[in-house]
């Protein structure tokens, strides 16, 4: 790709072209689907959770290159974390791990955070016994 000019940095491009964890999880323990009012993107994240830990994560995204890359990166980052850790996940982690996003595209990383939190909420909703213990998800707007 040395001669290729890209809109996004190489990490973002890599996650866009070769997304990690793309797809749906069969029998997911939590599923979150969210939309960005700003541009109309839609992102869906499914989680497999075992013993309070995220064992696996998958995404599907209707959205631009950075939305796809953000969801790919978010699912990568979140795997192996505890629910509590995941509840503190912010879009900034996605942006950093991606090596930055154009200012106008930061909202894509926010969408990934929101999708993850929605999936966690879904999980907690299905397991009310855990919900009391877990901190409320804070969605941080960019």
């Amino acid at each position: 790709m040395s001669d290729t000019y890209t809109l996004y940095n190489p990490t973002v491009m890599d996650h866009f072209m070769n997304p990690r964890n793309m797809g749906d999880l069969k029998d997911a323990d939590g599923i979150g689907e969210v939309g960005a009012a700003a541009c109309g993107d839609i992102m869906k994240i499914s989680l497999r959770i075992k013993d309070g830990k995220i064992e696996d994560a998958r995404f599907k995204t209707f959205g631009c290159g950075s939305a796809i890359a953000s969801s790919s990166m978010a699912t990568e980052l979140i795997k192996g974390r505890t629910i509590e850790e995941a509840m503190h996940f912010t879009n900034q982690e996605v942006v950093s791990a991606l090596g930055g996003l154009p200012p106008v595209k930061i909202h894509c990383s926010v969408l990934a955070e929101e999708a993850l939190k929605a999936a966690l909420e879904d999980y907690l909703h299905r397991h009310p016994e855990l919900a009391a213990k877990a901190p409320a998800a804070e969605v941080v707007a960019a």
Partner: protein
Amino acid sequence: MRQVYLDHQAATPLLPEAFEAMRPYFTEHFGNASSLHQAGLRVRDALKKARQQMAALVNAESEEDIFFTSDGTESSNLAIKGVAYANERKGKHLVVSATEHPSVMNSVEFLEKQGWTCTRVPVDAAGLVDPAAVGAAITPQTVLVAVHHVNHDIGAIQKVAEIGRICAEKGVPFYVDCEASAGWLPVDVREFGASLASFSPHRFYGPKGVGVLYRSKKARLVSIIHGGVQEGGRRAGTENIPAIVGAGVAAEVAVEKLPGRMAHAAALQKRLWDGLASRIPYIKLNGPLPGPDRIPTNLNISTEFIEGEGQLLLCDLNGIAVASGSSCVSKSLKISHVLAAIGLDHALAQGNLILTLGDANTLEDMDYVVETFARIVEKLRNMSPMWDEFQRGVIDSVIAPTGRGKSFSQHAADVSGKAIH
């Protein structure tokens, strides 16, 4: 990898013969056209010749009706504001079609802040404006009607000659933005009844850095870039001679090649759209059908369940250069106002792609695009929650409704918590 440039609406390569014509004007004949010595006088002749070439392209009465600006955007600004300010005492009302280029729309918005009012005449689902509706919008205070010849996004050809007749009857100057047509379709300012018309040669193999405004002597026009008395007092600032010279050559070539260009583009357009339509399900052509109402160089498509930027980037990585009117592609995160004006469903506007054809494209290129694009669509649909939800009957298709599931917009509103704009 095959390279297929399908963004002629955004930029075209400069003709080698135009470049050769420009070359001496950089370092050798570098004079300022306002100077009264050899260096200046010499370039005046070049300026005059280029004016004649421009006049010939659009069948202007005289080369004196041709004014050079810096680009199509400035020409639109000059036409709108220059006529508005010149006629301030007569009235402060403008009529424009709803799908004019942002350079027109935003000029009008600016004037609205300064006390003008404007009627935006809507277009139909194909993007065509009804001449009678334009006529009906004219009031005694109207000082200008602006309807573009061809729309930059969806290639709709407006009935400008008919609108021109109505404007002439009512005695209102008529401005026709020909930026998306000049060099690709016949433009005849007299047939159009245009008092003003604009175009820019960089859209038909001329150089960047020069735009053109035709103005018939009947229409009053004042300058909007103030300073010296260049361009007959209509545009201050040092003329960009090399670009103007190259633009003249591009105009001359355009006149000569026009029939060939149109036929070539029409063949490409047919091959490409037929290929896409037969190969890819849930795809829609926006704007008029190929034929007399659509410029042969333009295809504007919406592919359902996937978004435009991803399509664009994957096309690019496969050597195919395209544009998109989707919100993710725009810096303002808004879908093209043209797609909004034709009432295109947001789901389809999101999946928008604009393909504009040119001389160097071949039929084989079109086949390559069809095959490549089919793969891209498959890849992106696999990634898209919408495609999956459509399969499962959660949401329905806009293009080919099955009667199952809710609309995309409803779904998007549900998951985002807000109506999609």
